[in-house]
């Protein structure tokens, strides 16, 4: 027996599979044409997709709009950069990020989860602003210049090793990681715990009468989102070799929200498609006109007005219908 929410999630899996297939094709084509730029751009798109994924866990599932998710993305990026400059090991950077992000998420979660709705949006925004200013003013962190000189690393995967400088290799590695983050999030959201998050979004007031505290699932969702954002951020300096305070800025958080809304909130996969779409769009439009903000602004307003469910929110029901037609187990 598969219920409606599980079926929606499966439809998301199908869409992710399509994206992975397309990515593999892109990687193959990239290798064949000796491309580095498009592969790195795609890698960057995936990294920001991870950030968008964390926004969607909060917005699309728990119903909490975070305008400050860049806080954790930047935290992950800086932490990873600092670790890599001392110990050039992916696993060291990744582990350090996971631990610190969990702690930071817990502390942040206790602060932000005291409020709801629009106040949640504003408090997350405020916290990220404070963090951005602190990084911007801290000389030990490179202040406004950020940190350059993050070394190229070899990621030891046991059977093989991938260089962060190899465009196709690192692209596939990031693809795998982001898909794992997606899969973990999707799995969690399909457990009784995850369903509680969805219920929280639908009608928070009823939850306590079903026997649950509302604080716990909110906090867990927030920590989870913080970790997804930070781990995605940790990949950034590996790709680009530097970090700068702009990673903490509102533009980063805002972009992630734009990504989720155009991609389709509450689908998880929308974050991935949205990020690919937006990254490509920005890169292309930016080359044609210096007034790309007008174009982005118009497209975005159009998406908010005419495509309220976002791209994947509109496409996914088609897949769901196909899945429903399949013979039942």
């Amino acid at each position: 027996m598969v219920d409606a929410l599980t079926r929606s999630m499966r439809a998301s899996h199908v869409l992710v599979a399509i994206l992975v297939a397309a990515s593999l094709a892109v990687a193959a084509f990239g290798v064949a044409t000796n491309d580095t730029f498009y592969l790195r751009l795609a890698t960057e798109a995936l990294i920001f997709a991870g950030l968008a994924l964390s926004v969607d866990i909060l917005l699309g599932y728990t119903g909490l709009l975070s305008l400050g998710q860049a806080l954790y993305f930047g935290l992950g990026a800086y932490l990873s950069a600092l670790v890599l400059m001392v110990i050039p090991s992916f696993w060291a950077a990744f582990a350090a990020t996971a631990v610190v992000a969990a702690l930071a998420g817990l502390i942040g979660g206790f602060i932000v989860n005291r409020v709801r709705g629009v106040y949640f949006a504003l408090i997350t925004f405020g916290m990220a602003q404070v963090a951005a200013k602190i990084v911007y003013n801290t000389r030990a962190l490179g202040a406004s210049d950020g940190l350059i000189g993050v070394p190229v690393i070899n990621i030891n995967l046991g059977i093989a090793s991938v260089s962060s400088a190899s465009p196709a290799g690192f692209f596939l590695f990031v693809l795998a990681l982001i898909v794992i983050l997606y899969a973990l999030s999707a799995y969690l959201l399909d457990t009784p715990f995850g369903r509680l998050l969805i219920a929280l979004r639908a009608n928070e007031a009823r939850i306590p009468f079903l026997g649950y505290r509302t604080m716990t699932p909110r906090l867990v969702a927030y920590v989870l989102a913080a970790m997804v954002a930070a781990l995605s951020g940790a990949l950034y300096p590996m790709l680009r070799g530097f970090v700068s305070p702009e990673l903490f800025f509102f533009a980063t958080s805002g972009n992630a929200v734009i990504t989720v809304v155009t991609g389709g909130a509450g689908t998880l996969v929308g974050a991935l498609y949205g990020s690919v779409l937006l990254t490509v769009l920005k890169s292309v439009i930016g080359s044609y006109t210096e007034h790309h903000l007008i174009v982005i602004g118009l497209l975005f307003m159009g998406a908010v007005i005419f495509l309220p469910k976002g791209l994947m929110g509109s496409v996914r029901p088609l897949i769901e219908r196909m899945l429903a037609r399949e013979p039942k187990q």
Partner: protein
Amino acid sequence: MSEAIQYFQFVLAPQMLIGLVLGVAVILVALGLTIIFGLLDVINMSHGEFYALGAFIAFALSSVGLPFWLLLILVPLVMLPVGYLVERGLIQRVFHSGDRHVRTLLLTFGLGLLLEDAFRLVFGPNPHRPETPITGGVEAFGIFVPSYRLFLIVVGAAIIAAVAFVVYRTRLGAMVRAAAFDRDMAASLGVPVQHVYAGAFAFGVALAGLAGVLLAPIYSIFPTMGRDFILMAFTVVIVGGMGSIAGAVVAGLLLTQIQAIVSLYISPVWSDPIVFGIMVVMLMVRPQGLFGRLGHG
């Protein structure tokens, strides 16, 4: 002892006085924001760009020879229909969806991007500055204050008083407050809710535009100027209580004084983080702000 007096006279007092001017400026921008939030429940992310729009319209009109004093009346009048159309044409399209906060916030965010780039397209990237309409200054007790800043304090106070009067003491204001408190109830009592909403949005936008005209002579005009006050204005609105006019005034004066003192005794660099920190703490302990919401309580 005389050193302490001198310190007060030459350092502390002017610092606080300057904080007051900044406070009035911030309040002027925050007023429209708080009215729009209190009534429509919309976080207007493009508010800063409407402030800039007011300044640019004034700049364009003054370059064809219109005097500053006329612009003070003309620009808000031009901004009113702009705001009205934005509310009816854009905000209303997503107003009735379930996640109104998110979608109106995103919509106005997109509008802000568009406007900022449009300013650059039309007026170029470089700054402009209108001549200060009142030059000179007043000196009292050894403290020097430029006349235009005194004028700003007086006019700002008058505008704030006028807005408070309209909202709290007139029939129009009563309709606005009724609509803010309970939309359906107000509609059933014959309040034309649709027009009240659009009108309030237009009013908020016009206030932002008026602030743009008033502040341009000291803060100059350039395409990204909208980002200047918006963070501070948001902070003021949150700390004061969204939708509360009294809250905006008190928080505006308080926070700018804190900034002035922080930049004197700690470092100007930390004045912004400290104020944002206050906002975060405020949201934690008293999310409704110092004064709560418009129409509530």
